[in-house]
């Protein structure tokens, strides 16, 4: 194990390169800016290319091209930058291009954008939301693996805290098992053979090698996402077996909640925590089991209430569910605000336990 003190963004970039990423195209936007800086500094030395895209639209389409050519490729941004990429993210899902999108989110207001998406078609995006940099090093590599395994776009959802906090981390390689060969990649070699390759959202295929056509193709894509939903939901939980109250939170917020719940347990409170590690697929069945016996489910998220929809869909009695998070920025509007604080979270939980809903 080699521990090095690294910026979150730098560690994420190193993990991506370790995963075999060879192409990145990005456009600065806080707090995703450092990703493109570190990529520009580090990718060329690993035989890769980092391009300063003219727009997020251009960047994500370049990454699609690099991925279509058979290489591990990514783009990244946050907020409105991610909004601009929605058309391409949907396209990658429908034309089956493995692509990784880093969303170094400012806060947690991107939950709907990540899990519902703003693109066209019956598609979903696997979204990994690590709680800290240790997990992030694994998730970055997992994102590229899942993208290749299922030929889908995968969103890595970080935040300001993750991107801009220094931590001593070990960038070690994770092995997630074998992958299918990229026999679909556009390497240019099959022209004139009568069996040339095609990547196309409509699944039409070619004269000699007809595809299923749009209707059947999109049915197959939807079925693939149903299959992913049954296989790839991940979560972490603690003390739920005898908990009267379960607190649900994701990403950095999940780590803060875990800390507070540990404190409250030590003080004798019957409380547990549940953290969706994948925002999509949402670990609904696990949440249902974890909250089956409890009488209260508190949802902590730094937004006006987005994940709480998925929590309500999966908790048996939806009246048990109550929000304890909220919109929370600093005055710049770019950074996490005062709510992401263990004392504040503790206070909100205790108030809820005492029945005073704030």
């Amino acid at each position: 194990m080699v521990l090095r003190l690294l910026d979150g963004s730098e560690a994420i970039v190193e993990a991506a390169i370790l995963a075999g990423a060879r192409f990145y195209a990005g456009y600065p936007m806080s707090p995703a800016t450092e990703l493109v800086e570190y990529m520009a500094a580090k990718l060329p030395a690993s035989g890769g290319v980092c391009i300063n895209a003219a727009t997020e639209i251009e960047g994500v389409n370049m990454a699609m091209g690099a991925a279509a050519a058979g290489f591990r490729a990514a783009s990244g941004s946050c907020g409105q930058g991610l909004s601009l990429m929605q058309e391409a993210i949907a396209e990658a899902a429908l034309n089956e291009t493995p692509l990784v999108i880093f969303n170094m989110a400012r806060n947690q207001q991107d939950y709907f954008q990540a899990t519902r998406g703003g693109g066209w078609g019956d598609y979903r995006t696997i979204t990994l939301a690590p709680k800290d940099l240790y997990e992030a090093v694994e998730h970055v590599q997992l994102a590229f693996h899942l993208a290749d395994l299922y030929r889908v776009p995968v969103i890595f959802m970080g935040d300001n805290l993750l991107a801009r906090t220094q931590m001593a981390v070990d960038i070690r390689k994770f092995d997630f098992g074998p992958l299918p060969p990229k026999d679909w990649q556009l390497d240019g070699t099959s022209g004139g053979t009568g069996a040339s390759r095609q990547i196309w959202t409509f699944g039409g295929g070619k004269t000699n090698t007809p595809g299923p056509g749009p209707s059947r193709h999109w049915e197959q894509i939807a079925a693939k996402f149903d299959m992913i939903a049954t296989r790839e939901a991940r979560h972490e939980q603690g003390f739920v077996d005898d908990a009267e109250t379960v607190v649900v939170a994701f990403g950095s917020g999940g780590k803060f909640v875990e800390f507070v719940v540990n404190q409250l347990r030590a003080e004798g409170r019957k409380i547990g925590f549940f953290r969706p590690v994948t925002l999509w697929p949402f670990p609904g069945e696990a949440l249902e089991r974890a909250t089956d016996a409890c009488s209260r489910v508190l949802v902590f998220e730094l937004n006006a209430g987005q994940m709480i929809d998925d929590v309500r869909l999966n908790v048996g009695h939806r009246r048990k569910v109550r929000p304890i998070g909220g919109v929370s920025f600093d005055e710049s509007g770019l950074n996490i605000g005062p709510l992401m604080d263990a004392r504040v979270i503790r206070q909100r939980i205790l108030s809820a336990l005492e029945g005073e809903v704030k």
Partner: protein
Amino acid sequence: MSIVQTTRPPAVPSTKVANFKPTLLQTEEHHLCPGCGEPVAIRLVLEVILELGLAQNNVCVIGHGCYGSFVMTLDVDCTLCLHGRAPAVSTGVKRMRPDVAVWTLQGDGDMTSEGLAEILHATARGENITCIMLNNGVFGDTGGQMTASSVIGQRTKNTLEGRDAAYHGYPIVICDMVASMQGSAYVARGSVHNAAAIAQTKRLIRKGFQRQLEKKGLSLVEILTMCPTGWFVPAAGGADYMMESLGKTYPLGEIKDVAAAA
């Protein structure tokens, strides 16, 4: 030297242009309109690719327009990407596979309306790709509406009285824009309105690909193509109409060649 025997009929009937299928097409069938210029232009590109020995070393990135249906018949590795984004997607392919010839197949709507940013920034970066733009001055695929390249006076479905500069603005002359940028290596405009123009256009396309192989920068070959359906003229009248309308704003010939300058 062989002497052509003219006293009896040939053993093999002569090949007509109309029944010649390029090697790099999986079928000669297409579903474009009678009198459409696009299949002719696409055939020229495929012949050039074959003649340059690039059949098994090229990737085509196709935009959205009537030419898009060739994604099902081109016998080259290809993808049909999002509207306007072909130069960006090509950039990703080319940067990862610098020794593969990468080309875009776009229309005037795809390149100069939806995708202006992508073509200009790809040029600015000097990407070694060849962009083919089929210019018919309309969104043919959606039924003949005005694009950024429709010429002044041109009647389209949403400029029924003709494109009026005061109201609709002026056409974008993409070749001039791209030629003015340092990253472009070769810029030329051809046409498929008659046999001579077709032969000349093939030479332009060949030079475009050659500059890519020489890694000189971006090459753009614009090809004026008939769209009788989108222009609301009879199929046979497309060529004349084109040279009287688009041909006046878009003169044919080479606009830039870094090889010639060097």
